[in-house]
């Protein structure tokens, strides 16, 4: 039993391949095999062409911060010790955006347009979360 007390991803048939890849430290998104577009969050069909054919395709993990916030109110007891903490949205080079945290950037240094790259945080023996750091 780990001491990680924060909410964990809810694994579903649609997203389990995403989380299994992340556990192997690979960032993979669904890519439509008809029109070639990437999509996230996971879904059973391509929202552009409605094709069911997709492949879990590795992405570069590079992107930019498109927006961020700093949470000051302790909505969740398990995050209370980290207040004030930030949450960012990152637009990947392939297009889709992920919500995450940055691992090495203080709140006051975050800005829209900051180049970042994915890192993998093994928060429990079973679960890894993608987060981001300043691009190297």
């Amino acid at each position: 039993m780990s001491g990680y007390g924060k909410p964990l991803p809810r694994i579903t048939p649609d997203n389990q391949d995403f989380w299994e890849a992340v556990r192997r430290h690979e960032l993979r998104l669904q890519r439509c095999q008809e029109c070639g577009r990437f999509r996230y969050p996971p879904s059973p069909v391509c929202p552009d062409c409605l094709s069911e054919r997709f492949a879990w395709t590795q992405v570069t993990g590079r992107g930019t911060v498109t927006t961020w916030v700093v949470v000051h109110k302790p909505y969740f007891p398990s995050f209370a010790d980290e207040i004030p903490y930030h949450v960012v949205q990152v637009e990947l080079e392939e297009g889709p955006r992920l919500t995450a945290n940055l691992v090495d950037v203080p709140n006051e240094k975050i800005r829209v347009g900051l180049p970042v790259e994915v890192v993998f945080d093994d928060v429990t023996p079973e679960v890894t979360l993608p987060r981001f750091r300043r691009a190297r």
Partner: protein
Amino acid sequence: MTDAATRTIRDRTAIAGVGVSRFSLRAESSPMELAVQAFKAALADAGLDRDAVDGVAINIGWPLGVDYDRFAEVVGLRLRFADQTWTHGRFVGPSLQHAAMAVASGLATCVACVCAVSFTQQRGLLGGPGDFEGTREEGGTHEENPVYGLTAPAAGAALSFRRYMALYGATSAQLAAVPITFRRHALLNPQALMQKPLTLEAHQRSRWIVEPLHLYDCCVVSDGAACVLVTTAERARDGARPPVLLAGMQGMRAGRDEFLFGLPGLGIGKQRRFRYTPTDDELLVYRMAGVTRQDVDGLYTYDAFSPLVLFVLERFGFCGLGEAAAWVQDGRIGLGGALPMNTSGGLLSEAHVSGWNSIVEIVRQLRGECGTRQVEGARVMQWATAWGDSLVFRR
């Protein structure tokens, strides 16, 4: 000008009466008790008997509010039309539209839109551990993502405003004009919960909730209820009060270009990035009502967080994209200004009755009952939200 919708529903239905419960910052009554107070007040206002009501439209269900079935049992209704939306304030407009459509189509003759909300008794449900919406496949509708500590609707508005600031140079001090203006309105409204003036200094000094939103950019956490009685225009003309006609409406938008708390094109979550300008379809409500934006004597919106007020102004073209933060300065959205907004104080300063308190205010304004906060000569008023639904009301 000859849309099917224009021909079928313009001015066919009207609001015959409105009522509210006592508003409170503490849990003093159950949501059901509040709902009953508002319902009886609306019946008295309309001069209608309980048995005249044969439909109910509920916006906020249990446990924040009351469900249609229990409400009907408690107040002895015999319903032939019942409607209940997802428990979210975004459904104020759609709920009122359902009521109007039910009446216009003959499914009911008088629908009571009832909204009771007890936020003080259910704090854990909003952004706390009891808020399970963020665990939806994939993510909550305000971009909640509990895994990363993004757990509350306020965070969604903060995500949008941060990006808006970066794109257009808007500032928190500019945003403050919204809650400051609505607080001035609340000071003219005896039933408003916030009765102390708000200054720019106090706004800027107030604690952050989710940065860049300060405490005063977030709505009152309160208990209260409101009831709006919708019937045919013909019946309403025979009522105790001047009818307020539902002149035009348009539905809530959804899709990948929509993020509830930001304009299309802003680039939050799944939204594409582009420069939004309202299309004819986005402005259907005016065409249906047979009015123009210039005819609107007051605009009312869901102001749970102050950036939403900026977004609705741009969504409906009252100002251009990225201009709203400057546009709301110098009293423009205040009483006596070019476009008075949320003249009761809104969710930011009157009470958070999910927005129904603003529908009640529209009705009272159009009936000329608002005393020192009356918009002189008000004839046309609009409800509109950042997510695109709208109704135009006229007397």
